[in-house]
């Protein structure tokens, strides 16, 4: 495919940079391992090596540079290592029938996906309702819009723990609801902004035409504003679902969470297993990619059925 060539070129460049970065990033780790196994390293003491810049270490220990690509706990794992870890915690477990085990990223991804979809539904609903209110009411436009913008300036990492604490105070069990709220908080905004723009996209002539038919407000909405907003809506939904996923993962980070991709990332950090972090990170990225691709597909189908060229 002609379209995939530029994408693959960029991907190849990223992978190349990644591989090139692995050696300097892991040289200290590689030398530590080598020292422990009795090999000769320069300088021999770990403490002294801290004083040295990494490029110096690489020049002095050319024989150990390659070891940086096969460490158990690398600072920066290679793509292959990440891929292997990802496979171990997803496909391989699924093949053994343990897809829903607590060690499986499929299980954690499912937890995250659930909260994301709930948050996405909530956020999209709120965003669309808010957009309709803003377009149809000057008062709402002047009162709600500034707050919508301010809401996005509050750092979500600061807000997330509060939402979790407050929702447990009002007796909400489990984490799905607070996570969905956090995710909705992030994803309603692009939907709101996109829908406002979309609902306002019909020009004066289009509105005049409907006036010459003495069309009701409901007709103007259903026959003109809503269909005219569809291309805008789908663009917003794609941004929104990615934001919803980020919101859910942030909601899983505060201590106490044990399931979900966010919790895996945090636990991996606490237990010093960088491969687990990277695998969870990639699982999240793949999940996001899948969700956006699905919406992209829905957009194409919908717009094509509406006769518009997507």
């Amino acid at each position, binding site marked *: 495919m002609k379209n995939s060539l530029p994408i693959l070129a960029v991907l190849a460049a990223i992978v190349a940079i990644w591989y090139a970065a692995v050696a300097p990033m892991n040289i200290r780790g590689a030398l530590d391992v080598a020292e422990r196994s009795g090999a000769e390293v320069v300088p021999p003491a770990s403490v002294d090596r801290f004083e040295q810049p990494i490029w110096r270490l690489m020049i002095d220990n050319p024989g150990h540079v390659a070891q940086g690509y096969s460490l158990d706990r690398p600072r920066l794992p290679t793509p292959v290592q990440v891929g292997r870890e990802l496979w171990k915690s997803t496909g391989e477990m699924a093949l053994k029938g343990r897809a829903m085990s607590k060690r499986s990223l499929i299980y954690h991804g499912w937890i995250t996906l659930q909260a994301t979809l709930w948050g996405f539904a909530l956020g999209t609903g709120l965003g669309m309702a808010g957009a309709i209110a803003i377009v149809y009411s000057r008062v709402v436009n002047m009162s709600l819009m500034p707050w919508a913008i301010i809401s996005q300036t509050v750092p979500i990492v600061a807000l997330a723990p509060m939402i979790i604490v407050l929702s447990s105070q009002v007796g909400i069990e489990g984490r799905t609801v607070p996570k969905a709220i956090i995710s909705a908080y992030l994803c309603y905004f692009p939907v709101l902004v996109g829908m406002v723009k979309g609902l306002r996209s019909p020009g004066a*002539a*289009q509105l*005049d*035409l*409907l*006036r*010459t*038919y*003495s*069309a*009701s407000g409901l*007709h103007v909405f259903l*026959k*003109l504003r809503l*269909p*005219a907003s*569809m291309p805008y809506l789908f663009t917003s939904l794609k941004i929104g679902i990615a934001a919803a996923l980020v919101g859910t993962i942030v909601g899983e980070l505060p201590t106490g969470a044990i399931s979900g991709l966010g919790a895996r990332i945090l636990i991996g950090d606490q237990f010093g297993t960088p491969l687990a972090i990277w695998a969870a990170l990639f699982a999240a990225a793949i999940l996001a990619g899948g969700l956006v691709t699905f919406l992209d597909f829905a957009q194409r189908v919908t717009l094509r059925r*509406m*006769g*518009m*060229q997507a």
Partner: protein
Amino acid sequence: MQQMAKSSVPDRSPRSSVISASNLDLTFQTNDGPVHALSGIDIDIGKGEFVSFIGPSGCGKTTFLRCIAALETPTGGQLTVNGMTPDAARRARAYGYVFQAAGLYPWRSIEKNIALPLEIMGYSKSDQDARIARVLDLVELSNFSKKYPWQLSGGMQQRASIARALAFDADILLMDEPFGALDEIVRDHLNEQLLELWARTEKTIGFVTHSIPEAVYLSTKIVVMSPRPGRITDIIESPLPAKRPLDIRDTPEFLQVAHRVREGLRAGHAYDD
């Protein structure tokens, strides 16, 4: 005003006025102060007439058309459409309006675009289909009913928008520079078609243009307007016959009318400077 119904022979001359304005004024309040868009407009448009409004930009020709359509509200004077206020006439579906841009909905096929007013006005599905077929035939687009607007040329889109305005059988057709954005050849063709359509449907047509040949070729009555304030400088009853081939434009009668329109426009401009 309704005596016309008795006569079965289409009679274009008698003054059974469909649109009637007397001493019509419209002043827009803008940030830069009041703008006198229309001033002392007096005109009677009879049933079945083809009236063109011509003048430079800012002369209020479009504004007057919008007043008839109740898209603008005059600030003074009298205006009746079919003997009613413009607002009431609109609710009674007295007119179809064709805008400068075809303004077809890109998400609707041609037939669905024409169905738009019919859906809003609550026609039954079978009635809709019959009307769509009839008006598509009228504008010679029957083979394009399933196409989407982007698949049609500009001229075809404009024909579709005329079909849309005709679909609900309004007696009056208001057209605001409908062919302004099209090239000369397409415009000639559409002018010819429009005259044919007018002869077949016997509608009353109000037509805004800034092309002198177009106004003279199409109209039974030409209203020359001038700007600041927008007013009528001349009303010309066309002496041209009802049947008009395109080459009528080379006849002395045609050129004489065109000359008088040009004079009227020039007079308006001198006042302006």
